[in-house]
């Protein structure tokens, strides 16, 4: 009995010992990728005759330089965390859901619709209803691409991409005609009722309860994927579909579930922006958050907890770029280029190969 416990403890320590260097190596890899991306950005800034260091200082200051900046960055990270979780669900079940952006739109529109369409519901209920229905909408928007795969063997990449454009144009149609509102010059819906608005957490900042909800969901998703039998099945199928099929796991059902949960997360993400920030649905409201979500899950290696720092980093880039533009006239679109470079390198073994050679004892 005693010996038995010893061996268990023993294996655990070796496991930690084995895991830790890999994590350190991965972190070093990311730091190098990030530095390279920033260096390329710096070259671009310098080539337009501006000083990269002042630009980056302004970027950092805008992102994390004050209490208000931090609050705003936390707020911006909300939708990114949720989009990241959406991608985590998809990728850990090896579903290539490239339709997260469209699913955000579906969820956002439904959240707005519930928000302005339903009167006289107590606030918590109204908000809960809006979130639940937006999750359903996001999942529904992902249904056709995944059914195409599970029923007819069509690769989900193209259909899920197509549904992004369908969502963007369809919601644009909705606000131009059936839901046209006279209360806004932007193409958008009527404003949501006060009962559907997410309570703010800090005076003067848009930071709201949505952020707390995103954090809770991170832990729920972590628990589900890593602590339940269902989640374990999903991950097994994702890691090796052939083996999973051989082992008698329901491969198709797992893919379906992974996609629907992914869509639901995206839908909630869209809703968080509408209920917490915009207060109504507006066309083109998402600045590619769905794509950010994909990179965030990659940076996080599909670990829900690691989604938080990755999303904070991306949110910092987005918010900091505003101050960078106003202080140094370096356009915010520079950040898209930096993001593109990061995405270019995130799955590359570029530095990782070098690092594992340099530190073989860690690899």
């Amino acid at each position: 009995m005693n010996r038995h416990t010893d061996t268990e403890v023993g294996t655990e320590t070796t496991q930690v010992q084995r895991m830790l260097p890999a994590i350190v190596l991965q972190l070093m890899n990311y730091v190098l990728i990030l530095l390279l991306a920033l260096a390329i950005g710096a070259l671009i800034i310098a080539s337009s005759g501006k000083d990269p260091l002042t630009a980056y200082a302004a970027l950092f200051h805008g992102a994390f330089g004050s209490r208000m900046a931090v609050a705003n960055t936390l707020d911006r990270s909300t939708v990114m965390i949720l989009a990241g979780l959406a991608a985590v669900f998809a990728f850990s079940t090896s579903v290539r859901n490239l339709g997260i952006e469209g699913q955000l739109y579906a969820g956002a529109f439904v959240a707005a619709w519930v928000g302005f369409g339903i009167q006289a519901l107590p606030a918590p209920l109204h908000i809960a209803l809006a979130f639940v229905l937006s999750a359903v909408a996001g999942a529904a928007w992902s249904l056709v691409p995944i059914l195409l795969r599970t029923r007819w063997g069509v690769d989900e990449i193209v259909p899920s991409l197509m549904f992004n454009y369908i969502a963007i144009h369809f919601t644009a149609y909705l606000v131009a005609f059936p839901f046209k509102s006279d209360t806004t010059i932007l193409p958008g819906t009527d404003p949501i009722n006060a009962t559907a608005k997410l309570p703010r957490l800090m005076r003067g900042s848009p930071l709201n309860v949505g952020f707390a909800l995103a954090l809770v969901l991170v832990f729920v998703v972590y628990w589900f994927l890593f602590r339940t039998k269902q989640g374990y099945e999903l991950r097994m199928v994702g890691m090796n579909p052939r083996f999973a099929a051989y082992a008698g796991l329901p491969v198709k059902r797992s893919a379906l579930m992974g996609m629907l949960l992914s869509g639901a997360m995206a839908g909630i993400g869209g809703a968080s922006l509408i209920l917490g920030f915009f207060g109504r649905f507006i066309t083109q409201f998402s600045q590619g958050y769905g794509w950010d979500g994909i990179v965030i899950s990659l940076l996080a290696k599909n670990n829900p907890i690691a989604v938080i720092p990755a999303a904070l980093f991306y949110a910092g880039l987005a918010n900091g770029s505003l101050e960078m533009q106003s202080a140094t006239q370096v356009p915010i679109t520079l950040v898209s280029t930096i993001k593109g470079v990061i995405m270019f390198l995130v799955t590359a073994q570029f530095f990782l190969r070098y690092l594992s050679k340099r530190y073989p004892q860690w690899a």
Partner: protein
Amino acid sequence: MGIADSLSRLINVALFASSLRMTTPVLYATLGGIFSAEAGVLNVGLEGLMIVGAFFAIVGSVTFGSAWAGLLVAVLACVILSFLFAAVHLEWGADEMIVGLALNVLGYGLTTYLLLVMFNVAGYYSSDTIVGFELIRIPLVHDLPLVGEILSGQFALVYLAFLSVAVTYFFLYRTPWGFWLRSVGESPEAAEAVGINLRLMKYTGVLVGGAFCGAGGAFLSLAHLNLFSEGMTAGRGFLALAAVNFGERKPLKCMVAALIFGFTDALAIRLQRFGLPSQVVLMLPYIATVVILTLSAIQGIAAQRARLAAKG
């Protein structure tokens, strides 16, 4: 009378002429997608390559005062970007789908940034200094009834696109290089076993693919409008991806898919004059793609079942 009149205003010679024009950029990107896919590399970055092509076509045209120079610069820019794509994927094992998406993010970001820095404008750039392509009258064909109106009086790049389909077909199915390229996509192990240089073939496929995307982008900015606007590719690269998918990488079948998109586009623009909302118009090609993919998948499965049943 009313219906016949409307129909003849809707479906006429000009519709087919504009279909060819709308098909062209998608067709170029489709050819790009074919080359890449045949070499076994899925390139979801066609959209990003196209927008880079559209931008650098303007740069080349303004700098050298010629539309053809614009085309060349566009192709060059896309080849360089494709080289980076191929290098991180082939040398450092980066995931092709993610790097493809990165091309889209990078392409959009870089062009909007450069638009501000180089031309000092946001949103779009148009100027008299941009030299666009000229329409070409084909001497004898031009005088033919109906056919003349459709085929003659198009941009050179339109003819080149369809010519490229023939060339691509010839290259892929009638030359050893084409055979090697296809074998790499079909069965990399077998190709390697018979001594084909996998890496070289993959680079070739991706780079040639990039060149075609550059041409497609150049067509967007230098034919018809002579301007660059942010995100002007408007998903055409993704439609091209769908066309490659639907056409199973076969040049002629893919061309048919591209033609369907071009026709839908042209028809939809006309339907707008009949009161169809533009948002619905913009949506149609994407819905068409999903429907086509679904139908071809169902048909494929039915055919497979029939084969199995025949075997007993």
